[in-house]
Each structure stands twice: as structure tokens, then as C-alpha cells.
């Protein structure tokens, strides 16, 4: 067991160190792309906490990403709040929204949960349109903040690193074991004395807060707020990233984001309608790795992957 724990932590720290070194090797353009991958990777890690480890399929997570985005962006734009303060306003804001909406949403289970979250997500998107005079919904707002690229990269890495190690610690903790127990067998876990609602609600809250942190960081680091990030597409993306990388694996989300992002990059160089290529790639990928890449590898070979 000891050896395995060392191997697991070693792998994760190794990945983070690798990402730290990577910034010195990347050409400027890809430097920016990888920064985005780190931020969306954080979002995917947050999503995976719910889908992969708790077994809850949310279709409205864009709401939390956007809550962080707007929660951080609007105070900067209208009130001149400083970036650090704005980050925490965004994160706590999305956490509050997740805490509140988790109560009705988690009364449902299975696909009804997916639909209720989808509807909440749509409501959030429509609200950005309804308050168009404040949000400038589809044009978006450019924020008066400037972060030099190297700092931007390292802040994104710091956020992603905390999210990754935080999840790793969480899923290996007793709390995480209860979540996985709920995922596998709700009744049995309930009989052991754990309150399913309370555990799911906490996981939902953590996932919402972390999604919001990713959104807030995105707004501040890229100085932009727009309601495309509140649309259903940004609820589907994390699902896609996590399923491609491997749901219920700690490193799967990052791998999924990186793979999907670079497939899109490569394909958009090839074709106007690059999504055709992306679509075919998705079908082929999932045929080869039905459990996502890391999930399938864990099934076949590396059983110790967390």
C-alpha cells in the first residue's frame, strides 16, 4: 500500500512539474492554448468530482462556471474591485448558487437530476440575456485587467495543481470513499449510516465552487466575460472532456481537455467545417476506449490509477 501511495503521488506531482517545465518550451501561441487547457482542466476536474466519483450527471454546470465568470468580472468592471478580491467573490458566489440549487436538484436522482440541472443551466443563460443592459450578453465585456502571459500561465497552473491534488486527496479520504460508495450502491452506503443527501450536496457544492473558481480565473486572466460560457455547450464540454479522458480518474479530465482542444486545433487548420473531423474523432476514440482513455487503461493494465 505504501509503495502504491508513493507511486500515485509521484505520478501527480510529476505531471504538475512537467506542466511547469512545459511553459519554457512552448512557442507563444501554444503557451496561451495550454493556459486555457489548465483553466478548463480545473473546470473538468470539478465536473469529474460529481460525474466520475459521485455518479451524478449534471447538464447545467455552465451555470457555475458562468457564475464565477460573472461574479468576478462584473465587480471588476463596474466597481473596480481588485483581481484577488474578485476571484474570491466569483468563487464564493458560485459556491452559494451551488449550495442553494443543490437542495432542490438533489431531491431528484438519475436522469431527472440531469434534466433539472439542464433547466437550471438554461435559466442562468436566459438570465444573462434578460439582464442584457448589465451583462452585454452576447458581445461580452472586456475587463480592465492585464496579466502578463508568464504570470497567467503560472496562476492557471497553481489553480489546476490545487484542484488536482485536492481531488486526489479527497477521493482517497474517507469522504471520497463514501462518495464512491454512493455511486456504486446507494442503499448499502445508506445502511452503513451515511446520509446520501448530505454527501451528495457537499460534493455538488465543492464541484460548483471549483467550477466557479475556474470561471473567475478565466474572466480575470483573459480579461473577458461573455455569455457563450453560460450556454449549454459549456455544460456539454466538461461531460465530453471527462468521458474522453476517463470518468472517475484524477488525471482523465486534464487529458480529455488537452486531447479535445488539440483535436479541434488540428482539425480547424484542415477544414472549414472542422467539427466534422472532431465528430469522427470522437466516435473512433470512444470505440477504442469505451471507458475514456485512462478509465480503459485502468481496466486493462494500470489497476492502481486513482
Amino acid at each position, binding site marked *: 500500500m505504501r509503495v502504491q501511495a508513493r507511486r500515485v503521488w509521484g505520478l501527480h506531482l510529476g505531471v504538475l512539474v512537467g506542466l511547469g517545465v512545459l511553459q519554457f518550451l512552448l512557442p507563444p501561441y501554444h503557451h496561451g492554448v495550454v493556459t486555457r487547457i489548465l483553466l478548463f482542466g480545473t473546470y473538468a476536474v470539478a465536473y469529474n468530482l460529481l460525474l466520475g466519483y459521485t455518479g451524478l450527471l449534471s447538464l447545467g454546470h455552465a451555470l457555475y462556471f458562468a457564475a464565477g465568470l460573472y461574479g468576478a468580472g462584473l465587480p471588476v468592471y463596474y466597481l473596480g474591485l481588485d483581481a484577488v478580491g474578485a476571484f474570491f467573490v466569483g468563487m464564493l458566489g458560485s459556491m452559494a448558487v451551488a449550495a442553494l440549487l443543490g437542495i*432542490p*436538484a438533489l*431531491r*431528484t*436522482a438519475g*436522469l*431527472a437530476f440531469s*434534466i*433539472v440541472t*439542464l*433547466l*437550471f443551466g*438554461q*435559466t442562468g443563460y*436566459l*438570465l444573462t*440575456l*434578460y439582464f442584457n443592459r448589465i451583462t452585454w450578453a452576447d458581445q461580452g465585456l472586456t475587463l480592465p485587467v492585464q496579466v502578463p502571459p508568464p504570470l497567467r500561465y503560472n496562476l492557471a497552473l497553481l489553480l489546476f495543481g490545487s484542484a488536482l491534488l485536492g481531488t486526489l486527496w479527497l477521493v482517497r479520504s474517507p469522504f471520497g470513499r463514501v462518495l464512491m460508495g454512493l455511486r456504486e450502491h446507494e442503499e448499502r452506503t445508506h445502511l452503513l449510516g451515511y446520509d446520501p443527501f448530505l454527501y451528495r450536496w457537499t460534493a455538488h457544492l465543492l464541484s460548483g465552487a471549483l467550477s466557479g473558481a475556474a470561471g473567475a480565473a478565466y474572466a480575470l486572466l483573459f480579461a473577458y466575460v461573455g455569455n457563450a460560457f453560460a450556454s*449549454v455547450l459549456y455544460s*456539454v464540454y466538461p*461531460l*465530453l472532456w471527462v*468521458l*474522453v479522458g476517463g*470518468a472517475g480518474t484524477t488525471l482523465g479530465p486534464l487529458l480529455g481537455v488537452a486531447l479535445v482542444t488539440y483535436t479541434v486545433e488540428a482539425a480547424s487548420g484542415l477544414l*472549414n*467545417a*472542422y*467539427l*466534422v473531423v*472532431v*465528430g*469522427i*474523432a*470522437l*466516435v473512433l*476514440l*470512444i*470505440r477504442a476506449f*469505451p*471507458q475514456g482513455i485512462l478509465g480503459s487503461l485502468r481496466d486493462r493494465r494500470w489497476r492502481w490509477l486513482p
Partner: protein
Amino acid sequence: MPFPGPLALALLDGTTNGLLLALTAVGFSLSFGILRIVNVAHGEFFMLGAVLAWAVVTVTGSFPLALLLAPAAVMALAVGVDRLVLRPLRYAAQPTVVATLGVLYVLQQLTLLLYGPEARGIAAPFGGTVEFPWFGYSGYKLAIAGLSAALLSALGVLLRGTDLGLVMRATRQDPEMAVALGVPVERVYTTVFALGAGLAAVAGVLVVPVQQAHYLMGLDVLLLSFVVVILGGLGSLGGTVVASLLVGWMDGFISLFFTPTLARILATLVVALVLVVRRGGLWDERAG
């Protein structure tokens, strides 16, 4: 309280929209109930029906021909999707979500390439207004409602009263037992999937004279199908139809009183609330 006129109009429009939605959603519901997959590409079958209808009418000038050819083409396509994508994945839940999302991208973007980004409409195959005491209503829209209702009833008869329906229901209840009893489960799956795609395509054809065909029109329909299917109870035909009508009426009525965006916000929240209160949807089939 508005006049009875607008109210009755909202009711009638809601019925037409609701029946069209049911026609689309029922395919989603069948693949969900029987194949146990969430087909994210279902809205694209609707969209292809509409786009192909435009193409057929533009080339041949015949709407009835479009009503035959477009759904037939979409059904053939659905058989292809089943063979190439769903069957190799053994209809497993999570992988098929990713795979059908891939299919969605491919169909949507190929349509964009071949058909272009414009929204195009066609003339209704017949004009005419039916006069009610307070207002006149498009005869074509009434025909849409009638045809949708007829198709949905026919599907009901197919499911309840024929051998094929029996086999479908048996497959849904216990796939393994069905295999053991010699039911060709894979062929049933293909049939169900193609049938659902064909019905969505019919709805797509019918909608073009009122709403125009556009390559992105599948998404809204997919989201609504999703909602209606869960609201109506998993895989229940009756539940899907009633839930569609409710969504149609609610949309019509709320739009009478509020601006469109606020109306959609309220409608969305009402449906969410219904689901929270009645966890299994309005008609929970597991009960009976």
C-alpha cells in the same frame, strides 16, 4: 385577463406545437426506453428532415414527395448510425453519449457545408384559413396537428396491438430473456432507432413551411425532447404526448403575459419544479 380570442389562439398554437414536439420526442423516448441510450444526435434527425424537405421541394416542387423521401432518407441514415456507431459500442450508456455527440457534430457540420448557414423556408402545400368565432387559424397548421395526432395514434396501436410492439416491449423489460426466447434483439433495436429517427424527420418536414429550415435547429428540439421525455416518464408514449402538450400550452400561455425571454425563464423553472416535486415524472411507468 386577456380576451378569449388570444387565449384560444394560445391553446390552439400550443396544441400544434405540442403535437409536433411529441412526434419528435417519441423517438428519443423509444431509444431511451428500449435501447437505453441517450441519443444526443436525435435533434439532428429532425433538422435533416427539414433541410431535406427544402431540397426535395425546391427540386421537384412536390411537398408530398418530400414527406415520403426525407423521412426515408433519414431512416436509412439512422440504420447506418446504428450499425457503425451504436452496435459496436453495445449500446453502453456513457460511451454512446460521446459517440452520438460525435454524430451530431458530423451531421450538423456536413449540413452547414452542403446547405449553408441560411434559414430557408418553403410555401405551405395549401393555404386557407379556418374561421373561428374570434380569429382565423391557418388551415395548414391544423393539418399538421391532425397528421401528428394520427401518426402518434398509429404508433400507439403498433406498440400495443401488434407482434412487433410486443417484441419491443419484451425487449425493453428484459433484454436477456428476450434473447433467450429467440427475439432478434439487435434487429429490434435497429428498427426502433430508425422508426424514431423517421418520426423526428416527419416533424422536421412538417415544420418547414411555418418555421424555415436551418442547420442549427436541432439543438432546441433536442433539449425540449429531453425535458418532455423525463417529464412524461421514461419510455412512456402516453406520458410523452401529454408532457409535450403541457409544454406547448404553457409556452403559449406564459408568452401571452410576459416578454419572450422572461416567459422562457418562467416556463423552464416551472418544468424544473414539477420534476423536483414528482421525481419520476408525471407518469411513472415503473409503477405500472
